């Protein structure tokens, strides 16, 4: 069982690596990080601030784009191209397939993020001449970004398991945007009453709370993050992804592959 999941994951990873789209996006992200250096030079004191803000935002946004681009094709493309049939006619359970795809794409994104993070640190080194203790928090911010990717991957996989690539991309993107503005949704909920309030509160718990995982500006100002926050955020991201994946498995398990 684990071996099959591993091989499906490895194959997914291989597919992503051989896909040229990936490289274009990474190159663009690195370019943006490099540009951050020049933007920062406009105002002397905030170089470091701009490099971290812009660099990490670039990593975050491009990673989400990659996650969506590849994620939506994970299942629907396989069905469209009928590569899925030869896999499922083997002793591979449908849930193993979903799990393998998930780990494959997550793994791709982790590797991807590490590459881009290196770029950010290189830019940081360039503008600050040396790294100090506060920069360690940047690693935590990157870790949180990876957690965001894990959630987006699970969502893209969920939508891919039952709808077309285009719709999957739209849904996933919408959830990403609303998840980023989750705090404002919470504010909105507090100002409403009755049924609307119930609906809004329900939505807050249903959509992924990306604003909780977004610590870019705090880290840019060198503020520390509590260990407890790191722990509970990780737990939230993982359990939420698990919920999304189990829903994906549920849907996929019952689907007729016409």
């Amino acid at each position, binding site marked *: 069982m684990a071996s099959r999941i591993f091989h499906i994951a490895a194959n997914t990873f291989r597919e992503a690596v051989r896909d040229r789209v990936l490289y274009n996006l990474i190159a663009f992200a690195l370019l943006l990080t490099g540009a951050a250096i020049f933007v920062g030079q406009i105002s002397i004191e905030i170089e470091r601030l701009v490099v971290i*803000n812009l660099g990490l935002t670039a990593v975050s946004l491009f990673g989400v784009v990659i996650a969506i681009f590849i994620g939506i094709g994970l299942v629907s493309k396989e069905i469209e191209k009928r590569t899925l049939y030869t896999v499922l006619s083997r002793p591979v*359970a*449908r*849930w193993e397939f979903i799990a393998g795809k998930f780990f494959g794409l997550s793994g791709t994104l982790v590797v991807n993020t590490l590459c881009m993070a290196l770029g950010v640190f290189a830019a940081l080194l360039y503008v600050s001449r040396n790294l100090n203790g506060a920069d360690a928090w940047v690693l935590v911010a990157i870790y949180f970004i990876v957690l965001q990717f894990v959630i987006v991957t699970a969502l893209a996989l969920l939508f891919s398991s039952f709808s077309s690539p285009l719709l999957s991309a739209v849904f996933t993107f919408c959830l990403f945007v609303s998840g980023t*503005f989750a705090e*404002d949704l919470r*504010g*909105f909920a*507090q*100002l409403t009453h009755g049924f609307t309030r119930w609906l809004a509160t329900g939505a807050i*718990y249903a959509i992924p*709370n990306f604003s*909780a995982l977004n610590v870019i*500006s*705090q880290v*840019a*100002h060198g*503020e520390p993050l*509590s260990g*407890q*926050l790191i722990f*509970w*955020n990780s*737990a*939230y991201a993982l*359990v*939420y992804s*698990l*919920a999304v994946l*189990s*829903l994906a*498995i*549920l849907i996929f*398990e*019952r689907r007729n592959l016409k």
Partner: protein
Amino acid sequence: MRRRRTTAFATLLFVVSAMGSGLLLHTVDRLRTRATLNQVLYISSPKLLKALSLGYHGLLADVYWTRVVQYYGEQRHTRSSDFSLLWPLLNLTTQLDPHLIPAYQFGGTFLASRPPYGAGLPQRAIELVESGIRNNPDDWHLYYNLGFIYYDLKDFRAAADAFDRGSRVPNAHPFLKIMAAQCAQHGGELRTAQMLWSAVYETTKDKYIRENAEGHLRALKADFEAQELEKIVAAFHQQTGRYPSSFAELARARILPGIPIDPLGNQFQLDREGHVFVGDPDNFPFIERALPSGYLPKPAPGSARPRG
């Protein structure tokens, strides 16, 4: 059947993890410190923010406007006196959308108000409303707001001037002219204040501003009634050569119909020098005259004791 088993297991897993994620989110929220300056603003430079909004600055302004209201509401709810984010948020909002009138009005009112009802930064308030006027010279509401701020600062001449400017705007409300005149001649009088606050109460749609106006009107009523009561007490003093020991005495002597009650429902108090004040000054905002002698307002939690 394996399929049924997998389906059942997946359903169970989904339910458990969905509930789990809800609980975990709750935990995370409680851990996150109250929005720091950086978190809520995210990007503190208005120019940069405008550039990054890719043309959607109207939308972003609306988002920030909801944050203003939410922030203010939260600070009031937790009875905090810290409104340090109010000015930056309003600044961002109005820079993103210079025509968002409600933002100027809100800022004009609550930047100037003293804690715990506002930030206590009248100069910032003036700055904000003036920039609003620059961007929207034909909106009489903003002149009105400005006049108010000056009035509250007891700068009656500047207030009259603002009302006057406003009255010249086409379609201005007729009472602007009246208020200009009133401020110029009877600046310090209670009646002027009553007029001004009634006008606000009647014309505004914002819940907080209305509440604020209501509070002011109540205080004015209390001040006025206290003033009238002091006149009666003074008359008694003149007749008898001493001050009454309490309102009960005046009631027994049929000078007053009963013990006078203030607008909040507490009994008015009388001190030995014939000064009348409200029954519960700590919980009666905006009172100016009907306070006990030597009264120092209780410091709000977390802020320094104001100098008396």
